[in-house]
């Protein structure tokens, strides 16, 4: 299983029936492929849609029904559309049960940097700051390392996305939460040892006596 699939499958286990969920671009989008059978999850697309369905069949799209990246989507029965003020009212107002976002850095206290690398990448924060500040639960989907360096750092060196700590970090190696503001190892990926995770991590990791293995297949 490749890294992205591990992450997406593990995050899908956080979904609950009836949840309203927003998925960022990249790995987070793939979470929609692993919704447990029989579970109904409402996916919000921040350009103004709840009830985003699959990519339309050939010749069955409409130019005015797209995801936030402008790509054609379908709408499930019971879908609804709205303007951007409502879309971010849902996000900022705490109506969004969970957001899954990518990350550039997460630090030992759970702070997130994911919107800019000054001087290098300045795409604009789009909805990231509202999502990371406003969603009830913030889950970050991130590769554990980049170019051999840990992305779970002691302290974020990149500009923060929000001062609010995230709730859960899922990488291809581990699941990490932040109780009492301390990065705590909850699970390791199948075939990955606690020592391997610790070795790949710059942040000081709290390692409980029992660390579970991700329940993914």
């Amino acid at each position, binding site marked *: 299983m490749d890294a992205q699939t591990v992450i997406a499958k593990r995050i899908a286990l956080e979904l609950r029936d009836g949840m309203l969920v927003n998925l960022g671009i990249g790995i987070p989008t793939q979470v929609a492929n692993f919704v447990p059978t029989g579970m109904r999850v409402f996916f919000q*697309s*921040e*350009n*103004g*849609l709840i009830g985003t369905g699959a990519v339309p069949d050939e010749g069955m799209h*409409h*130019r*005015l*029904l*797209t995801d*936030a*990246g*402008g790509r054609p989507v379908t*709408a499930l029965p019971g879908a609804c*559309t*709205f*303007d*951007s*003020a409502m*879309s*971010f009212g849902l*996000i*900022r107002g705490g109506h969004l049960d969970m957001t899954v976002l990518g990350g550039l850095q997460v630090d030992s206290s759970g702070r997130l940097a994911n919107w800019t690398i000054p001087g290098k990448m*300045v*795409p*604009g*924060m*789009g*909805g*990231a*700051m*509202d999502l990371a*500040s*406003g969603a009830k639960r913030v889950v970050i989907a991130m590769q554990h390392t980049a170019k051999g360096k840990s992305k779970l750092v002691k302290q974020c060196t990149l*500009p*923060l*996305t*929000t*001062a609010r700590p995230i709730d859960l970090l899922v990488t291809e190696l581990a699941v990490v939460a932040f109780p009492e503001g301390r990065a705590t190892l909850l699970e390791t990926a199948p075939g990955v040892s606690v020592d391997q995770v610790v070795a790949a991590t710059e942040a000081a990791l709290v390692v409980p006596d029992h660390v579970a293995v991700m329940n993914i297949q």
Partner: protein
Amino acid sequence: MQTILISEAVAKIPDGASLMIGGFMAVGSPGRIIDELVRQGKRDLTVIANDTAMPNLGIGKLIHARLVSKAIVSHIGLNPETQQQMIAGELQVELVPQGTLIERIRAGGYGLGGILTATGVGTLVEEGKQKVTVGGKDYLVEPALHADFALVNAFLADYLGNLSYALTARNFNPVIAMAADTVIVDADNVVPVGVIAPDHVMTPSSIVDYLIAQE
């Protein structure tokens, strides 16, 4: 409200004007108006919009033609031309969190001085901004936005100027329609008055100034 040729509508926009433009990655952007802005070669525009789309798509066409001197937007990541012009100092870009941006525009249209949001607190976004504490929690005071013109794309208009929008093309359109001195609308379909049910009108005709004539 007046129905007007597209060339005449765009001729009303002077160089240096501030424009709010509907659309999200060009979906729901007023394509014909954008093309006409390029054709008439307007200069020194300020654009307030969600994003600058992609090179030579939607608002990206204004960037490509170098008509824009300032952009107040939430996202430019899919348009390298915007980033290049910004880095070269040719285009001033104010990046605003998306939810803050749309709500600042709404405040401008709804007669509110600005908004109180926690988004951006403790980040670069808060720099130089007034803060207010309400109920023990800190909020940024983000000032209302208003523009000279709103350039709106609607799916459906009646000949009075009542508007409705379709699917994910609604996005910024009904909000910017409230927040500009002059509102110019390009509608995909124009129908006789009374055909849009009162409950389905999303923008009332009284705030629309010009409806572009169908070809």
